[in-house]
């Protein structure tokens, strides 16, 4: 197969003129990635005992749960027949990669839900006794009627939390690796079709989860006039840097391979990168989103230069940039993959609309919803770790 100067004599298949996947399919892996990433941070504490992460360990699981609760929203908004959405689990086709989502997602959410419940059970039970007025009943309901925790029950809870965290690691990896597979397994599209896609998605997911958690932590500390924990931020910066190195290695290593081998798809991909994706890929995903944080992060991660406030600012800025990087990566994969025709002879435009079910406004609402949920959850549950002396035996 030969590719010709795509822009000299463009030719687009008639049905390729309207990309089938909208911005909602950009947001879907973005949110799912954060779900998996935030959970991985919590396991760093609960399973791998990184004590420095104690301040954010509970916040991480609650954030993951809130994000996870909204993960199916963009899909629903995208479906042209949303009233049939449940058919994916009712009459799934075993040959379809997409059919697995309902099951993988439900399993992961179940693990997460039970994990969160066990983690907060002491607090819920305590509030079921002490909360004022109608709140008492809310906490009684949340406690599922069990209003006492014996030392033996606390011990069982502790073991269960550990077990669920362990199970949650592969579940989170499968959840997001699977999202990558949805794209990587499409042989019709040379920009998507790579065996590395699940790994690329997974590493970028972890990166986005750490970044969103870091920002949340900084924001919550500032808004409640709390001094952020120096060691916690250092640990988050290290993790972020390490996973960013991995993500970048996989993302660009894969591209380098295609480019160097001059595989047949390279011609169309090169055109894509230097024309349509020049800003979103080269500028946002590579320079601003990856290179800059890779340079900034070692300051708070590995040094003690300047003031703590400066280092915290470095961590915050890097986290924002990383979130931009991952958003750009999702955009470049999902939208970029639909910008060239399967004729490989021409590009199409991607119409971005503000209004409508799949517009930018709806996308902003979908992205804001997990944060609203988190705000609600924080009113209900104590996401900050309890004081060690009041610790009720369950590892916070």
């Amino acid at each position, binding site marked *: 197969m030969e590719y010709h100067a795509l822009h000299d004599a463009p030719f687009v298949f008639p049905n390729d003129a309207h990309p089938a996947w909208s911005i909602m399919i950009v947001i879907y892996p973005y949110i799912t990635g954060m779900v998996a990433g935030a959970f991985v941070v919590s396991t760093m504490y609960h399973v791998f005992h990184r004590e420095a992460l104690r301040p954010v360990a509970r916040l991480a699981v609650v954030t993951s749960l809130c994000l996870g609760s909204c993960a199916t929203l963009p899909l629903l908004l995208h479906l042209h027949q949303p009233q049939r959405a449940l058919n994916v689990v009712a009459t799934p086709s075993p040959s379809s990669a997409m059919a697995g989502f309902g099951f993988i997602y439900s399993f992961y959410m179940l693990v997460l839900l039970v994990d969160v419940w066990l983690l907060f059970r002491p607090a819920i039970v305590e509030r079921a006794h002490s909360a004022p007025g109608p709140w008492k009943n809310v906490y009684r309901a949340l406690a599922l009627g069990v209003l006492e925790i014996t030392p033996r029950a606390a011990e069982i809870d502790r073991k269960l939390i550990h077990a669920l965290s362990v199970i949650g690691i592969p579940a989170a990896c499968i959840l997001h690796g699977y999202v990558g597979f949805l794209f990587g397994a499409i042989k019709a599209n040379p920009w998507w079709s790579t065996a590395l896609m699940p790994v690329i998605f997974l590493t970028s997911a972890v990166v986005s989860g750490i970044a969103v958690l870091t920002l949340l932590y900084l924001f919550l500390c500032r808004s409640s006039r709390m001094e952020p924990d120096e060691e916690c931020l250092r640990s988050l910066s290290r993790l972020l840097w390490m996973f960013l190195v991995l993500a970048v290695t996989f993302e660009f290593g894969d591209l380098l391979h295609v480019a160097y081998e001059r595989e047949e798809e390279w011609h169309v991909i090169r055109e894509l990168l230097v024309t349509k994706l020049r800003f979103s890929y080269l500028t946002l995903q590579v320079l601003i989103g990856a290179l800059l944080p890779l340079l900034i992060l070692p300051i708070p991660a590995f040094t003690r230069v300047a003031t703590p406030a400066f280092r915290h600012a470095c961590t915050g800025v890097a986290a924002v940039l990383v979130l931009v990087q991952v958003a750009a990566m999702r955009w470049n994969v999902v939208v970029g*993959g639909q910008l060239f025709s399967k004729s490989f002879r021409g590009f199409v435009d991607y119409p971005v609309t503000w209004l409508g079910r799949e517009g930018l406004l709806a996308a902003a609402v979908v992205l804001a919803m997990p944060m609203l949920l988190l705000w609600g959850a924080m009113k209900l549950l104590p996401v900050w770790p309890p004081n060690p002396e009041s610790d009720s035996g369950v590892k916070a």
Partner: protein
Amino acid sequence: MSLFELPILPMSATIAAGGCASGGCVTGGCASGGCSTARPDQASETSRREFLKTATTLTLGAMSLTLLPGAMAGDESSSAATPPGGGHPDAKKPMYGFLIDTTRCTGAGKCLTACRVENSVPEGQARTWVERYVHFKDGRVEVDLVPEIGYAASGEPQPEAEDVLRAYFVPKLCNQCVDAPCNQVCPVHASIKSPEGIELVDADRCIGCGYCVQACPYGIRYMNHETNVADKCNWCYHRVMRNEQPACVEACPTGARVFGRIDDPDSEISKRLATLPTSVLKQHLGTIPLTRYVGLTDEVT
């Protein structure tokens, strides 16, 4: 073809051949209303034995197309004069094929209108189209779409004859892949293969996820703007089940489009397949298309 290339047929999706009693149209955009397909959930379950039989038939049919054109000429059972559609559910399912002879296509565009009318295809979308390849003397190759109203009526400036080395037309339609990626990726069994090997969309099941649109390497599928479900060329399955030719074939004035039974050595398509060298689009993707071409150049993607 090896055993590993056995086509995967959805066991729950038996499409009853014959008249449409239920009105449960699986093809969606059928204008005539004469769709002769029953919804898979209304049709009887295909038994395992029948599944294997169908799979084997399909594989053999594909073999005859991809490897041994005309090789089944001596197969007594396959040359039985069963009419298309069979009529009897137990009758051996016919095997169909489509041949595009690019050397005969003149870009008249009659097929385009015929298809749009027959299948109520919305404006801006297409079940079939015709590409024009113009090789200029300076080495450039330009490709464009044959306008449905024809080049003359379109008023578009045309290349000067003295600049052109050669030009040819390539009609595109569903390749009815034996190992169809669109079918594989559909999460809800809305992309189904008829027992005759024709890939159909069940408009009553489609959730409109668009995954099949992404998976088709040939740009054949589209999300129908009007029905909001996936849609595609189905070789006019409703017509074929009525013993008629697809609308585009009937409309083609030059015989560039040939449709028929590839398990019947006396059919026009079998005779042409036996004598002409043919190839398929994007063969390297392993989709095993049933639509075959005469005169494809490597410019054609």
